[in-house]
């Protein structure tokens, strides 16, 4: 955040910027004439801002020769550009001239055909003429959305290219027409009967179809259940029959009924305890 606070304000525009350039040599043959359409690049927003030319003069030293480098005015008469070099007596044959002539920026639509004309007893050799220019891409605002005056285009309406289809030319048209015309001739009652019958037939067909579906579903379910059962059922063995040898077990010892005498040892123990109990009870009383 501190770095951002220190970062210098930097405005960057995404707009379309003009650019500069220059053409090649417009003079392509000895006629010393050229069409600007063959020289200038395509963009419509092109303004010519200078003419650069050179040539070698051919003349006698004592002669006076004028050389005119010019472009016609498309929008009217006369010239949109004209530069005159006056070679006075004393100027030597074979002297070269090289010049840059700045012009007010003018759109390409004003610049007509160019030429080099020689007035007087002389000629030019090795002529070269080129044009410097500036291009504004936004000359047509629709060039880019970043251009001033740009308007979003409307929705395209499509024009359909189609050929009308004539159904009467179809191969089955005649048969269908016959059937239709047959139906048109029947009475109301016949029609309702026919329609009822057609309904019945439709229902029957539907039922058959549904039955076939049900049957197939039942079969499928049964098959699935059978497969499931067979995959889970185990083979069980029955119990084996066992014989157990039983009988009666008689008692070995039998007690005979008789009188059993009291045990003298038990009586002594009992009496002692009785006497002790009696003492304890009496001890409670004075």
């Amino acid at each position, binding site marked *: 955040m501190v770095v951002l606070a220190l970062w210098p304000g930097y405005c960057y525009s995404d707009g379309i910027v003009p650019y500069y350039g220059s053409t090649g040599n417009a003079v392509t043959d000895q006629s010393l004439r050229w069409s600007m359409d063959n020289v200038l690049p395509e963009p419509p927003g092109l303004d010519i801002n200078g003419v650069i030319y050179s040539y070698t003069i051919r003349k006698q030293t004592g002669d006076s020769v004028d050389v005119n480098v010019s472009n016609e005015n498309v929008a009217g008469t006369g010239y949109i550009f004209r530069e005159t070099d006056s070679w006075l007596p004393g100027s030597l044959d074979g002297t070269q001239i090289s010049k840059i002539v*700045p012009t007010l920026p003018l759109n390409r639509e004003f610049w007509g055909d160019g030429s080099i004309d020689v007035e007087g007893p002389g000629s030019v050799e090795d002529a070269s003429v080129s044009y410097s220019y500036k291009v504004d891409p936004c000359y047509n605002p629709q060039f880019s959305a970043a251009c001033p005056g740009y308007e979003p285009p409307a929705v395209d309406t499509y024009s359909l290219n189609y050929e009308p289809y004539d159904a009467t030319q179809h191969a089955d048209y005649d048969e269908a027409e016959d059937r239709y015309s047959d139906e048109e001739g029947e009475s109301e009652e016949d029609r309702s009967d026919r329609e009822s019958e057609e309904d019945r037939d439709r229902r029957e067909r539907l039922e058959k179809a549904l039955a076939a579906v049900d049957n197939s579903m039942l079969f499928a379910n049964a098959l699935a259940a059978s497969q499931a059962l067979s995959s889970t059922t185990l083979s069980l063995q029955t119990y084996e029959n066992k014989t157990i040898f039983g009988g009666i077990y008689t008692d070995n010892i039998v007690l005979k009924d008789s009188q059993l005498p009291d045990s003298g040892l038990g009586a002594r123990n009992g009496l002692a305890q009785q006497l002790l109990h009696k003492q304890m009870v009496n001890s409670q009383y004075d």
Partner: protein
Amino acid sequence: MRSTLASIAALLTLSSFASAHEMIPTYPQWEQSVYAGVQTTTMQLFNKREEIEYYEIGVFDEAWNPLRFVTSYSVLKVAYLEHALFDIYMRNSDASKAVYICSRSKVSRRDSVRTAVSSRICSKIKKEGS
């Protein structure tokens, strides 16, 4: 004005091999320096010759005889694309005879170019009343 601009535009764009030497002002004037009896003037040299590093300064009279003068260095080192300001000091008696102040490029012997161009530009001292 337009022709001057046109010629300046021509100067800026026609050069195919920019290797130039220039010195201004064209018509310098003497001024009284801080030293009594000594005149001074300031010249500016611009070196656009990549192969030249040194320029020799000279002051001459009408007949191109060299005159005595004082400057920081009689042979200035001016790097490529650099401007150099230098002051010329002359006694009043010599200053009255001085007509030209010249700067001349010094071509190094180590250059392998077979013909070299030594350039010299001379400014003419403006006399009072001219």
